[in-house]
């Protein structure tokens, strides 16, 4: 049986990449000891000198990865929590995202920045954040956010092989929670492709990360009530599979966009706007966004955390409303 969880899928993929390509190396805080989530457990020993502890300085982790990628290495940077990537924002925005553009592709950066994002682990304000909206608004950076172990595997592979900077988002709540029989998983996917994970005629949900699982759970429940949902796993947020997004919206005419990030300025706005412009004639109802409230993500106490996060119940409730419209 080849059932693995998200963390195992990541660790194995990293191990393979280190074995297959000696330009690949890992850099980040505490990665030699295995990282705080153990994603790099055992790799320092198996690949001596190629798993490198960095000082506690995120701008340097990104900036040095840029230099190393430019030189010809294939760095995989780990930012311990997505919440701490902010100090590297400038290196990502001013530098990594523009390297190819400003040299017309003569200079380029095959680098990956992996980071655990999202909530549901009592991480409080600084160990729970969703950061995708900042980086999907940064042409030149790719942003990937899988939900299932097999996709973590194929997209991490693709990210390492990609000649561009890829922000690889790992939902920390799913690390050990979500398992999959990888052998029987759907075919490998590639960066820029979304997947219609479930088909139903009544409405279409869009999600990624933990929320994809909540959407699937809600859909299951709704099916029992006679409401059939289409669920789209976006997988890759930048580039976004706009065709699949529009097709899935047109299929049902009713759209529910779900994310864990706060509402205003969140990535859901982009999805909604695309649909409102390019699938307008097919719409039978207002485009509904379900997201966290506009407060700094996310309170620590479990009751407030639960209030903050969208979940199966909240999704099902929104979907019922929408279906009844």
């Amino acid at each position, binding site marked *: 049986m080849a059932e693995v969880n998200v963390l195992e899928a990541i660790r194995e993929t990293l191990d393979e990449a280190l074995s297959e390509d000696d330009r690949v190396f890992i850099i980040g*805080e*505490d990665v*030699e*000891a*295995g990282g*705080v989530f153990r994603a790099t457990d055992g790799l320092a020993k198996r690949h001596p000198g190629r798993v490198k*502890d960095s*000082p*506690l*300085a*995120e*701008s*340097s982790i990104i900036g040095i990865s840029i230099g190393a990628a430019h030189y010809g290495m294939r760095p995989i940077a780990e930012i311990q929590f997505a*919440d*701490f990537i*902010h*100090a590297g924002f400038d290196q990502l925005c001013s530098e990594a995202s523009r390297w190819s553009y400003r040299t017309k592709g003569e200079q380029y950066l095959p680098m990956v920045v992996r980071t655990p994002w999202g909530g549901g682990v*009592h*991480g*409080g*304000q*600084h*160990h729970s954040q969703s950061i995708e909206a900042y980086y999907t608004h940064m042409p030149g950076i790719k942003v990937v956010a899988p939900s299932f172990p097999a996709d973590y595997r194929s997209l991490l592979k693709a990210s390492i092989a990609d000649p561009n900077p890829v922000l690889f988002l790992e939902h920390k709540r799913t690390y050990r929670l979500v398992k999959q029989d990888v052998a029987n998983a759907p075919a490998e996917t590639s960066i820029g492709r979304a997947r219609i994970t479930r088909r139903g005629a009544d409405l279409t949900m869009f999600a990624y990360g933990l929320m994809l699982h909540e959407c699937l759970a809600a859909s299951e429940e709704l099916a029992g009530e006679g409401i059939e949902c289409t669920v789209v796993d976006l997988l890759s947020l930048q580039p976004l599979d706009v065709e699949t997004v529009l097709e899935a919206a047109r299929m049902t005419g009713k759209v529910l966009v779900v994310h864990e990030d706060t509402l205003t300025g969140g990535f859901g706005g982009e999805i909604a706007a695309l649909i409102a412009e390019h699938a307008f004639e097919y719409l039978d109802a207002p485009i509904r966004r379900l997201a966290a*409230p*506009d*407060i*700094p993500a*996310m*309170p*620590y*106490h*479990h*009751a*407030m*955390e*639960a*209030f*903050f996060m969208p979940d199966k119940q909240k999704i099902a409730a929104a979907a019922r409303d929408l279906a009844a419209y």
Partner: protein
Amino acid sequence: MGGYVGRRPARHAFDLRGRVSAMTTEERRQLSDAPVPNYHLSERQLERMYYYMRLSRSLNERMMALQRQGRAAFVIAGAGQEAAQVGAAMALRPGVDWLAPYYRDLGMNIVLGMTAREAMLNELAKADDPNSFGRQMPAHWGSVSRKIVTQSSVVATQLLHATGIALGAKMRNDPIVVLTCCGEGSTSRGDFHEALNFAAIHKLPVIFYVQNNGYAISEPTVKEMPVEHVADRGQAYGIRGQVVDGMDVVAVYQTLRPAVELTRRGNGPFLIEAKCYRLWAHSSDDDDTRYRPRKELEEWALKDPVVVFRQRLLEDGMFAEEELAEIDELVTQEVRDAVEWAQQMPDPKPEDALGYVYREVQ
């Protein structure tokens, strides 16, 4: 250290000062405010030092126990750094000077007036936690009345906040000092550099106090810096760097005290490194057996600052065993009370997640 009683809220069950006066039957135990030879501290100060350190450690122990029992989600503690924290905070003028601490600084908070009950409200993320009302993880301190600056989890950002406070104070001719703390690993961040650079250029009244506990999670100091001492980093800014034995509360106090007053008098910033040791794992989430040799830990455990200070007070004849045992017992009761009390206190309601994103325009 005026205002000692005033700073302890009335609901506090145990009043060390009350205990001390109850104890003064014997002439020799009339705790004096005069400096004791070899210590340059008064008996009263020494007793307080021990009490603060003991309370800090006991609170941390109890928090960890609660976490293991599943009654608290997360603990990050100051065990091993009590001397560094208590000695430094006692050099401040409470209610006057400012503190921009870091997560391990329970000991500093206690010196500045945090009660055991408040510490437990914080640990349990209760609705009345005065630091963040359950909005932040435990050990993210903050208090307006005690002049303790709110903080995030992002290390070293507070060094700039402290610098900004010092700038404001200097512009207003306000004779205060700002003490700000971080770990040695955090000195790798750009904000450390930018803060020291600015503070030195403008000769601001701020003390950068680095508690070098040997590790940044799993990374030993050599992975964070290419020089032996954090204090060496001061040379880049013409800032006096000082190293002090952070396991020795008296040495810490004696180093910080003149630095605080020199800084207050306009001599500009200090960079002080307290060499100490993280006796526990990084946090309740961390397993330090993966990276830290047990032997090293055992050696350092012999230097446990609370134990060593107790021993020294006894050996020097400053206090009798019973006297210290009485403090220990007092602390035990205080912590027990705090846990029982705090556990009954209300949790935040789900909707308490909302509000105060912006402060209302007056």
